[in-house]
């Protein structure tokens, strides 16, 4: 959320033409880092989801009594 807001204001000045000159060398350079960030981002999302699920299960569902 915050990133989205920040990103927009910080980069609104940049123009489109910048990324037309995508060179193989540039791509090779960034690919040394990718997908570290994506892994960090998606792994934390999944971890949060798991925590949320267990929270609902053990703190809301189970205290309301068993059914079956």
């Amino acid at each position: 959320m915050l990133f989205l807001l920040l990103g927009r204001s910080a980069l609104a000045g940049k123009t489109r033409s910048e990324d037309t000159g995508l060179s193989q060398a540039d791509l090779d350079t960034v690919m040394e880092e990718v997908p570290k960030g994506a892994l960090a981002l998606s792994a934390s999302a999944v971890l949060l989801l798991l925590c949320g699920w267990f929270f609902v299960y053990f703190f809301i569902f189970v205290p309301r009594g068993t059914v079956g």
Partner: protein
Amino acid sequence: MTSVARLTKAHLWIAFAAFLVACVFGIWQMWARSPLATPYVIAEHYFLSVTAHGVAMAFVLTTFFIMGFGYFTAETALDRPLPGKPWAWAGFFLAVAGTLMAVAAILSGQASVLYTFYPPLTGSPFFYLGLVLVVVGSWIWCILMIVAMREWKGAHPGAPVPLAMFATVANAIMWLWTTVGVAAELLFIVIPASLGWVDTVDVGLTRTLFSWTLHAIVYFWLFPAYIAFYTMAPQAAGGRLYSDMMGRLTFVLFLVYSLPVGLHHLFMDPEHSTGFKFVQMSLTVLVAVPTLLTVFTISASLEIAGRLRGGRGLLGWIPALPWDRPMVLATGLSFVMLFFGGGGGLVNMSYGLNALIHNTSWVTAHFHLIFGGTVVIMYFAICYAIWPRLTGHEAGTQDAQRLQLWLWFVGMMIMSLPWHWLGLHGQWRRVAQFDYTNPIIAAWGPWVTTSLVGGILLFASAVVFVWNLAALRADRKAPVAPFAFATAVHQPARVPASLNGFGLWNVLVLVLMIAAYGWPIAQFFVLQPPHAVVHRVDRGG
């Protein structure tokens, strides 16, 4: 301008006309359910409204959008004219005629059975026949998509089908499988009942056939959003798709696993055993996999773009992304809604845990977030991306587009998060008015009013959206660059045959469907449960 421009625009205009009208109904429903005094609220109006809202959003908006976008994709991604264009128009008019029939039946109050039309409640035959025509129109689309891919493959032996088209055809094939359940229910049970040919129905069987359709239809709606994630967002962000192969795998997994899982909508039903509920819950867990693969692959694709733009560090690529571009912004917002909606979905699918939230506002919240949020915001972004190619006009500024996307996102969060809370406290679905003098219900009041504010923002966003499309006519007429789908880091020259067609996967779907639905359907013919008497909602009750 593409040669399918008129065809695509015709479909999209029907889709968004239905959408705008449905939003009016939606906002009035929110008002009626709130503690505030609301005009016109009587049960007849409320359930007419919910039927119209559900049908317009779930059947009309989606089907027309998907067909229109599919025609555009077939021509653009394959770079050759759409085969059988007259058939496409025939499908369009069939679906329009069906929509008009259904709308007439709904607005005359003869079909207030809601979009799920659970028998033995039965309405006017025009309603069901209208829906059948919409489905038949969409079948024509499916066949045209398959033919277009076949012909392209014939002309390009061994070449990988472009990912956007591969996904579109995966959706077409999935939709053919998906509609079998509801078509059987309508043709063999519901329509004969509504025509008065039979007086009783096997309710368990109708619910089971409907469930066959009910989960996969959601993925039918979702596909365009995923197509945009894979083939538009990386390009819009100025990067590359991380892996074309993962895209293919994801779409194949959707085809395979969306179907044999529908029984998870019947967890709380007495006509199925825990055994088959458990089997389908297990398969449902697998459906989470393609979505989680997508989250990673698309994040990695955006990471490429962000780093190319100078982003550093573990997460510095995120603020470096061009969030001012509508497609990139929509993708980000869509992922945030996917996070919350997906979290709710994990709760829904968890077998016994379903009892906590079944048929409460939690469910309404969940599908507004995923479907109205994650999916529909990508419909908006797709329109903004392809509209210049369809009209030859380029928007002077994208401020109004950004504003519209933000409004939709904020509105959706404000509307749906309180709904989750209310659902946990027992607020149930599909109710015209709550009795706020009851102390339990009175405590819900402030949350319901908060969610109404979200609904107002959504409505405002819907108006701005349609305005944005219409207003483009006045913008500058520019030579528009041909549409380009994203390319991958390693654009494949060859892919395994299994990921370039659907033969193998169709066999797998068949096997899984027999395993998952064989006995759950056959049991009704073996067990011969007692039927229920048809209850008409038309003919004065």
